[in-house]
């Protein structure tokens, strides 16, 4: 038998050889001193490298580990049903805005400039966001999974969705509760979120929609956990109207906020509201560590997405807002 190569010796050490190959290798080692020496050396290096790597460990407790096990009382809102209603209303809104240049929502693909925010604790210059990509094509099995998971639709909703065609179809699939199973609704994360003056009591979808003039933007592929009404902030500039906060949970169950405010009442000029111009994107890091991405929607809405996620993740999620 020829000598054992390094790969075979490594497989023997790591228990990766099939029985017959292992027996043959052991037999050779019993007869070949040179291979025995190489085997011993490789085993020594393997043991030492394992020991060395084990000395490198995060110095503090890894944050975000462990999702709350119990369901939060009171959150029996039928999100799937409301998700259907939202998708229908969104489809209706898309149809209404079809004649308006630009899309209903979303981050501009190429912001021309980044302008300083009014209240940053730490200001990060915004890079051009990642190109807005269509809903991820996760493969036929994912779409069929989505179709299999989708509950039966009332006939009137099905008819409206058929009329709205592709956008509604995508929204119907995207509202499927993939991220968090309905039976394990987690309590909202405590601690890091600083309460904001604009937060008010939670509202239902039916109560929230009038604040935005009939449409609400959602993140494709994520299930909203809560809706809150946002009142005009004290001291804000002209044109600042009330709005809605859609609350999601990120993987460690911390709140992710999609805030949307109408900048102007219907008929008013929203172009000069606030510190933003259409096409600008602002990235701000707040005192509590939350990052916030803000931009203007061509339809006259101020949108912001904030959470304890990296900036790239926020941009990626912003690109999925419909």
């Amino acid at each position: 038998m020829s000598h054992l190569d390094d790969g075979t010796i490594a497989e023997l050490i790591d228990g990766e050889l099939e029985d017959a190959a292992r027996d043959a290798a052991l037999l050779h080692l019993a007869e070949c001193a040179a291979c025995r020496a190489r085997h011993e050396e490789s085993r020594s290096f393997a043991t030492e490298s394992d020991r060395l790597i084990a000395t490198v460990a995060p110095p503090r407790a890894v944050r975000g580990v462990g999702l709350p096990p119990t369901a939060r009382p009171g959150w029996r809102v039928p999100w799937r049903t409301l998700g259907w209603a939202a998708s229908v209303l969104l489809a209706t809104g898309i149809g209404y805005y079809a004649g308006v240049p630009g899309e209903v929502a979303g981050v501009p693909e190429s912001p021309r400039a980044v302008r300083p925010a009014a209240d940053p604790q730490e200001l990060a210059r915004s890079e051009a966001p990642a190109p807005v990509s269509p809903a991820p094509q996760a493969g036929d099995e994912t779409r069929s999974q989505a179709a299999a998971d989708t509950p039966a639709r009332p006939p009137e909703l099905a008819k409206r969705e058929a009329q709205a065609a592709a956008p509604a179809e995508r929204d119907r699939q995207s509202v499927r509760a993939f991220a968090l199973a309905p039976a394990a609704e987690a309590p909202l994360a405590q601690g890091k979120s600083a309460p904001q003056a604009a937060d008010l009591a939670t509202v239902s979808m039916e109560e929230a929609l009038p604040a935005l003039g009939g449409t609400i933007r959602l993140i494709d592929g994520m299930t909203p956990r809560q809706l809150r009404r946002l009142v005009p902030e004290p001291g804000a500039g002209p044109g600042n109207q009330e709005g809605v906060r859609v609350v999601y949970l990120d993987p460690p169950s911390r709140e992710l906020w999609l805030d949307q405010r109408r900048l102007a009442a219907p008929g008013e000029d929203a172009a000069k509201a606030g510190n933003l111009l259409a096409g600008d994107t602002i990235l701000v890091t707040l005192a509590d560590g939350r990052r916030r991405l803000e931009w203007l929607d061509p339809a006259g809405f101020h949108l912001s997405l904030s959470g304890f996620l990296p900036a790239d993740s926020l941009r990626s999620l912003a690109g999925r807002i419909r």
Partner: protein
Amino acid sequence: MPPAPLEQLFAQYYQPLVRMLYRRTGDQDRAEDLAQETFTRALAAPPEHPRPWLFAVALNLVREDGRRAVRQGRRLQLLKGELEGAGEGADEAFQRTAESRAVRAALDELRDLDREVLLLKAEGFDYDEIAAATGLARSAVGTTLTRARRRLVEGYRAQEKDRHVAS
């Protein structure tokens, strides 16, 4: 097999992912950010075979990260945090930190693929999973590991020798 719920993936893989990323980057904040970004991507495309997928995505994110100067800056802050480890004497903490630093320096000297294979093996990946996560041929995993282990140990010994000579 349908994709596992995200909570299950998170509970099972978040901590090992952060640990691997920390060993790869030397920066716990960055490691946690990258791990969270990895799971954010899992929201969009739930993987059928989560372990190699999650670690492969995480390693890709590290490769895309070009902010080496920022990482080096954070590493100085991290060193301070390590020295303040609770429940240890100052000498023990310093020794552990010095060894950990030497190991990270030796890891940094490895080729990317060698380092990744080594770190995945340390997380209990078998050869098939390492091949799936790195794109390496399964038949090449053994030789890559052999080379990586040798270079890590030799690199660490060289670091320790320099440290003792300097002190």
